């Protein structure tokens, strides 16, 4: 009973945060409600016995990714979004469709699923067993994700930097003013070939 009450409590917080994300018009309010959603989802993970996932949910999602979002919002000085009439037809047709789909899925899940239950604490999701699985069965995907992260870092730096800021070497402003960008890029291309 206590677990069900906790599930309902955090689930209601979660859904309320998700709806608040849709209702709010300022991006920073949406970002903060998304933090609420992620924190309550971490509590749900704890109820499922997934300690490690709950910890990295708070650290990576609610910590790192949302800080990145809020940093971007403040960097771009994003204001309130404007109301546009362009997609009114899409809203009128799409929102009832989504609601009908959600109701259908919920109905199927309620009526056509066996009533087996998730037992609390039956699964050990501690870091030790996760790491044992991660470094034995999932070793190759794990290493591939490190390459993915590296590519993402380089891509983010290249995309977010001003044009020409990456290729320019560390020189004094006077020397940087004198040297021409064109021949340097040609030379770089020749080296790559």
């Amino acid at each position, binding site marked *: 009973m206590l677990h069900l009450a906790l599930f309902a409590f955090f689930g209601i917080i979660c859904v309320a945060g998700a709806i608040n994300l849709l209702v709010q018009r300022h991006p920073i309010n949406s970002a903060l409600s*998304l933090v609420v959603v992620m924190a309550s989802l971490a509590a749900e993970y704890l109820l499922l016995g997934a300690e490690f996932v709950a910890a990295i*949910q708070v650290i990576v999602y609610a910590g790192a990714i949302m800080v990145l979002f809020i940093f971007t919002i403040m960097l771009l000085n994003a204001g309130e979004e404007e109301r*546009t009439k362009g997609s009114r037809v899409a809203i009128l047709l799409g929102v009832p469709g989504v609601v009908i789909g959600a109701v259908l899925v919920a109905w199927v899940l309620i009526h056509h699923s066996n009533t087996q239950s998730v037992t*609390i604490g039956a699964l050990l999701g501690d870091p030790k067993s996760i790491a044992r699985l991660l470094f034995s069965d999932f070793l190759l995907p794990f290493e591939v994700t490190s390459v993915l992260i590296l590519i993402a870092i380089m891509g983010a730096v290249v995309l977010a930097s001003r044009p020409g800021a990456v290729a320019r070497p560390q020189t004094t402003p006077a020397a940087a003013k004198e040297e021409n960008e064109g021949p340097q890029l040609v030379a770089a291309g020749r080296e790559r070939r």
Partner: protein
Amino acid sequence: MTSVTAIPLPYYLILSGILFVCGVLGFLIKRNIITIFMSIELMLNGVNLSFVAFAAHWHVLSGQVFVFFVMVVAAAEAAVGLAIIIAVYRTRETLNVDQVNLLKL
């Protein structure tokens, strides 16, 4: 561990479905490009919840490892996506997706 109290699996799936639907709705109706991006994160969170619920249901730990990978991909996607948003803002001076309708200016 006493397992007298148990939460049925459909409850978790319904919560996960609600989160996913909220993400889809936000993706469709929001006009701010950053909020649209946050809706994508909301959808990923809904999927993660169903992953963990099924992992607990079938007593298989790989579901939680998949959640780990989803989080890694989400982090990479957030970094690249926000960089793209910064580049878009630098060229268009707007975050409204209705005004970003050309690939090349």
